Structures are given as C-alpha cells and as structure tokens.
C-alpha cells in the first residue's frame, strides 16, 4: 500500500466528471478530498490523498490524464520545528486547510500534516521562521 497527495487540474469542460467516484470504483483506490476549488467554467483544482496498491495508483493517474485533466504529485512537505514554536497562532490566520489550529485546552499550536496542502503560506507568515518546506518527501 502506498499513499500520495496529488493536486489535479481540470479544464473547464471536464469538471462534471465524478472523478473521485471512478478512482474508487474502477481502480480500487481510497480517495480523500482535502481541498476542492471547482467553480463552473473555470479551471478547477482538487487536492486529494490517494491510497492503494502502487499499480492501481499508476493506472488511476493514467486515467486522470486520459480524461484530459492534469495532475501533480506533492513532492514537498512542511516541517514544523515545534521546539522553536512560541504558539502565538499567527500562522493559523493564513492556513486555508485547517491543518494549523490552536488547541483551545492549552492554547498550543497543532499541526495536522494530513490536512496540509503545502501552500507554503505559513512558512512566510510565521514570524519566528518555525515553518519550512522540505523537498522530495513524497507522502
């Protein structure tokens, strides 16, 4: 089993295809939609976690290309240097996915890597330079 994070880009006329359904049904994959930006008549983007056998993932991604969509596998990840963090919460102001949140019980920052879209907004927003991008780490 393997798990990857992928951004898919759809041309305006293709967004109606229930892609996730096909990937699940025909390719035996587990698909978790992390972020969707699909407004009508525009290029749509979908960020998903895909989990399954390596050959199924390959075949699934081939199908994505076939229907005229593009994809990019995430090859970066965000590193939170927790020991340097002061838990100010400034980064939570920009995080679009809810990966960065304040734990209300003790007001510490929590980072849910699974939800992270690697948009890198927090890297610049953190005043203490506690967040950084790591290359080549395929999830």
């Amino acid at each position, binding site marked *: 089993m393997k798990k990857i994070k992928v951004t898919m880009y759809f041309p305006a006329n293709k967004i109606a295809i229930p892609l996730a359904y096909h990937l699940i049904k025909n390719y035996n994959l587990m698909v978790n939609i992390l972020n969707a930006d699909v407004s009508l008549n525009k290029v749509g983007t979908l960020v998903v976690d895909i989990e399954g056998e390596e050959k199924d993932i390959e075949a699934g991604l081939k199908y994505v290309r076939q229907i005229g969509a593009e994809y990019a596998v995430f090859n970066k990840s965000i590193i939170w240097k927790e020991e340097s963090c*002061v*838990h*100010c*919460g400034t980064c939570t*102001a920009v995080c679009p996915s809810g990966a960065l949140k304040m734990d209300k019980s003790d007001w510490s920052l929590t980072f849910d890597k699974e939800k992270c879209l690697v948009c890198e907004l927090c890297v610049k*927003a953190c*005043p*203490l330079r506690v967040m950084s991008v790591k290359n080549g780490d395929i999830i």
Partner: protein
Amino acid sequence: MSYKTIEEINEKVRAGKAVVLTAEEMIDIVEEKGVKQAAKEVDVVTTGTFGPMCSSGAFINFGHSDPPIKMTKVWLNDVPAFAGLAAVDAYIGATELSESRGMEYGGAHVIEDLIAGKDIHLVAESYGTHCYPRKEISTYINKNNINQAFMFNPRNAYQNYNAATNSSNKIMYTYMGTLLPRCGNVTYSTSGQLSPLLNDPLYRTIGIGTRIFFGGAQGYVVWEGTQHNPEQKRGENGVPMGPAGTLALIGDLKQMSTKYVRAAVYQQYGVSIFIGVGIPIPIIDEDMAEKTAVRNKDIYTNVIDYSVSSGPRPVLKRVSYEELMSGSIELNGKTVPTAPLSSIKKAREIANVLKEWILKGEFLLTQPVASLPLTNTVNKLEIRNRTEGVQNEKD
C-alpha cells in the same frame, strides 16, 4: 472591606505564607467564594503576556578600547545602532534592519543573540578627537565582555489593542499578521484575562517603580509608556475598550532568557520582538480582587478595517475576547475565522513562573513610587506650517 498593605503582603511572601494565584485561577476563586472572601484569602494575583512589542531595544556600554574611540556610528552584526550618546554607549532598537540581510535580521535578532551569549560583530566609526584618537574599530562582543546591557522599552504591555481585518480585495501584510482579502480573517493580540494592565485597569497597584517579570528576569516599570492613552473609552468595569495604557519597562538584558525574548519577522512589514512580561498584582482590597477576576467575556475591543490607510480606520464591530478566542466571529453576516498573534500559552507560563518566584520568596512586591497618569490623550502628528508669532530658532 478587608485591607492589606504591600508590606504585610511582603511579610507573608518572606515567610513563605503568601497565597498567590494566576489571573485565571483568581476567576475561579472569586466565582466560588465571592469577592469579599477572595480579597481576604488571596494576597497576590500574577498576570502575563507574550506578544510582539516593536517599541523595544537595549542600551549597551561596550567598554573602552586602547587607544579609545568616540563611536559616532555603530553596527552590531551589520544592524545600525544609535550612537549619539557618550563614547561607547549605544542603543540598539528592535525594529532596525540589517544593512546586508534586510528584513531577515534586525535589532531584535541582535538582542536575542546577545541574550543567548553569542558573539556579535561590532563595527564602529568616528572622526577621531584628541582624547579619542581611534577612528574605526572591528571586534566581537558578547554579554560577558561588555559593561551594562539593559533593555529599555518605551512602550510595552499595551492595555488592550484593536483586532484587525481587511475589507479590500488585496492581501495585506501588516504588523497584525497577514490579513486576507474580503475580510477573510481577523487577528487580535492580547492575552485577555491574563493581561497585566487589564487586571489593574485604573493603575491602582501598577505604577512607576513596580517590580515585574521582564524577559525572564526581574525588571521594573519606569514610566508611562509612549502613547499612553488612559482616557480611552472604558466599560463599567473600568476596562478600556481599545488601546489604552502602556508601560515603559527596564531590565537587565544579561539576566534575560531567550525563552521569553524572541526576534520576529512579519512578512513585508519588518522586524519586531516578542517580549514576555508578567506583573504581580497585590490584592490590597476588594476592589482589586474584583478587578483581577476579569474575564475574557468582560473585555471588549474593536475590529478595525486595516485596508483604510487614510483618515480614521473604520470600526466594523465591537467584540469580546471570548468571541475572538472562540475561533471565529460574525462579521457582516459572514463567519470569519480569528487568529491570535500573542501567545496565550506563554502568557500562562509567565504568570506561573512569576507565581513560583513569589511563592519561593524570591520576588517581593513593590509599592509604586509614583502613579501612572489617568489623564492623557494621544496627539496626532499634523502636517502643518510654522505657527505665526512664535519665535523659532534663527528667526
């Protein structure tokens, strides 16, 4: 009404018998036992805050070289320091930027590095005088080979502050963090019910000379802070509903810890510094017991639109800190996420460290030498012509 003097409280502290609570613990005690009983039982309430405080910096005396130099220009790790003082005195301001690294390194980083005990590159220039013949110097200093190094911050511990949002269509990078377009977020910066001046809203116990927790060391309140604005609109509980009182603070940089002093960089805005401040409030009477039991839901501030850059920035809404800390507020019929800028976790830690110091008898309370003013408003800088009929220099 029970009444205790500071001296009586200190006697208990010395004897290890003082009852000390943090401002959050005080809320529960007052709720449980009532103001009267709490005033009798509790001796001290500790507060804390840990947030970015731009108006900060440190005086340093480097000691004299041989032959000596009257430094007229000074750089510390390439960050200019103000040297218009005696020969080897300088002031390094937190927001000053490095001449080679720009916004990535500034005065705040120099201060943090000094506290950490690191070597700092000192470069200075001079025109040379008979008594100070040297014209330039390049050497390394650290906190052990310099003379005095004390932080002297003209404005810290703001008593309440605005919350920020941005109604424009463009993202804004500000000292209130990144403000997303179309009111996409709201940021706020205070520790609310833990905040020092919100627990003594009318400055009855905090004044000039008050001993405090300052950057991990013991420091003092030396003056009202710049832009001290005690006449800000207040609620019935005396708590101001916007930026009000401020404090000028002093303390020995050599005793401080990088746990409580951290350099910060705000994207496209510049360098600032997180400072940890904790102030003990002696519970001298029922009024102070009541004041220190203030809760986030009783503290209000205004949500201000930072996209308006000229004229007064519009107030979009008045909200309580309870609402802000819930994670979202309603703004123009929309649910908008909120984010803090100052660390409540650290503020709690500071209130607890200060509590420990007092419980151990290592920290005694102080009677202010003089009170902070209760009347003063903030002037605007007007762009104007010289007033007619007033003698100016060279007239």
